[in-house]
């Protein structure tokens, strides 16, 4: 039971890292290597807000989420769209977006260094124990888990129940068919990219309650998120969420029952096995 709860908490953490990238890659088809930097920037913003005001860091969401939305929308509109338009095929776009977002991640790091400096930032919030079924867990992790659950459910419902959400899903499944039924693929992609950035920023805020950050840490989150998104299958957000929880549970089981030194190794083994069995990811569709 203890393993399951710790695993779920970690899975929630991973879901926060990966959901934003899933939207960006799944719908807008941009492999955004600057995703982790957005997460770190949000964590830094939260740190700065909390240190200055001592108000609950959740309040910082009011500023961080819209800001991330606007910034990411602008990135898509002004930096990604020219690449999308000139790309002859998906492969070309992938290459260009790898190069361009890699550059953007450097710009983000440069700005973070200039604004916040390079040292470690961490603060203490809701770092108190919660007793659950005879075991203790960190309150901040439980809060982040609940936040991630709200985001998961909210996104899922939004994607499946609203017109805008259905539009995004249609683009995710087949952009050219979507444009045939008069869906504005550009607007849908920009919305997905911006929304993805906003979700990532919300994740960064929640992770900042219990992780320590420095300006160069973004790549670690990007790598993890990429693995989760690919494991889940790029076109379905359920895949990313499921993959996040599978990874969280696997790492915890290995850490407690086998050896904590092998947690990440086990996670990657699982990732590789899943891809070998299902080369298109858990929820992916086979495309020709």
């Amino acid at each position, binding site marked *: 039971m203890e393993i399951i709860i710790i695993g779920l*908490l*970690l899975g929630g953490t991973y879901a926060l890292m990966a959901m934003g990238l899933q939207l960006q890659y799944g719908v807008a088809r941009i492999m955004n290597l600057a995703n982790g930097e957005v997460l770190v920037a949000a964590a830094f913003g939260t740190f700065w807000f909390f240190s200055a005001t001592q108000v609950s860091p959740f309040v910082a969401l009011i500023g961080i989420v819209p800001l991330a939305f606007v910034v990411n929308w602008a990135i898509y509109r002004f930096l990604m769209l020219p690449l999308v338009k000139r790309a002859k095929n998906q492969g070309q776009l992938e290459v260009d977006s790898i190069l361009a977002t890699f550059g953007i991640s450097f710009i983000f790091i440069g700005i973070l260094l200039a604004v916040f400096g*390079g040292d470690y930032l*961490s603060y*203490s919030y809701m770092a108190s124990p919660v007793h659950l079924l005879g075991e203790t867990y*960190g309150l901040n992790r439980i809060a982040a888990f609940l936040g991630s659950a709200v985001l998961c459910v909210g996104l899922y419902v939004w994607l499946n129940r609203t017109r805008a959400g259905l539009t995004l899903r249609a683009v995710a499944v087949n952009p050219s068919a979507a444009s045939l039924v008069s869906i504005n693929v550009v607007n849908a992609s920009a919305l997905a990219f911006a929304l993805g950035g906003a979700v990532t920023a919300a994740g960064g805020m929640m992770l900042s309650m219990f992780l320590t950050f420095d300006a160069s840490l973004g790549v670690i989150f990007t790598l993890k998120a990429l693995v989760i998104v690919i494991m889940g299958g790029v076109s379905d957000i359920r895949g990313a969420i499921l993959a996040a929880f599978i990874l969280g549970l696997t790492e915890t089981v290995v*850490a407690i029952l086998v050896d*904590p030194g092998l947690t990440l*190794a086990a996670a990657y083994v699982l990732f590789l096995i899943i891809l070998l069995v299902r080369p298109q990811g858990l929820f992916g569709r086979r495309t020709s």
Partner: protein
Amino acid sequence: MQRRTIFKLAAAAVLAGSFGLGSAQAADPIKIGVVGPKTGPLAGGAAVTHFPNFELWAHQVNARGGLKLKDGQRKIELIVYDDRTQPGETIKAVQRLATVDKADFIMAPYGTGFNLAVAPIFDKYGYPQLAQAAVTDKMDELVKRYPGLFFVQGSTTSYAKTAIDVLKKLKDEGKIGNKVAVVNVADAFGIELANAGRPLFKEAGFEIVYDKSYPLGTQDLAPVIKAAKAANPDAFVAWSYPPDTIGLAQQAKIEGLDVKAYYSAVATAFPVFKKAVGDASENILGAGGVKYTPELEKFYKELKDVTGVDGDYWGNPVYYSMLQIIEQSIEAVGSMDRKAITEHIKTHKFNTLIGEIDLSSQRLQWLWTVGQWQDGIFHGVNGVNVSDGKPVRLKTGW
């Protein structure tokens, strides 16, 4: 059209670069090269422990009018390069400083591997290399190899041994039992400390009830702390690195890890540790430590005023003392003759911020290696050839 502009810009940059090759004159400032990671995995530590010291030192020396040489006073100009935590870049940067910038002096880079990677270059051009941020057990071999290399730091084993000695003393006094849980991060210094520590624990009569590593970048340390707790230890030792040093303590607090002695290695001495762990940091042991004097208090205040950085209670004062040694040696020699400066360092004793230092054996003779958070300050409690450490307190709850 646009393309042409870019080429023009590039050409201009090439020209600007080649004009930088001008030679130095007496009135010119003394060029001092600084290399370290501003980005990459080691950047977080270097932003506190490495870069600010140079900035403060240059600021102070220049405020005094510069270094006093035979041909008059000369100010200091720092040339700072980012090595992005890649040894290949460190090598290039040091080469550039030595041969293109013609730096008068080059500060040792940050990190054990990085210092070893550039030691041949320092040696070749005759720059003394005062390595503060390099911890190794191969000092004997290395200082023989490189006559200009100084280790202003302890050895890996000395860090492990002095920490274990603190625990042994508590055990011998009957204050703690003999069961210890040990974890380490699976990266260079963590691995070295763990390997050095294992036989020492046994020698000291400890029973290791839990001994596991965890990967660098582990995001949830709850399983590690829970397992260590389940082993019911009397003392907990983590040979850890910055992000997880904080993560472990936060988790131990949540878990209420009931040990009488809690030690974690790198970054326990950082101010961010206290900020992140809060009052629960009280009585936590860690690598580093200082003897808190009024001069030191003044140093931290000036560091904060000039660089905006809250100094740590480990590297910063030693780094600054090392800079004082360099400053005193340069002024004593009266020129930037690197051979004479190296010789001077080897043959003299220096009065510094942390006390008297003698580098005649190319290494520090004494050093605080174990500290403890007591009333908001990370005091030295044990070290190599030090005797006036604060008495160790027991960890009483979180």
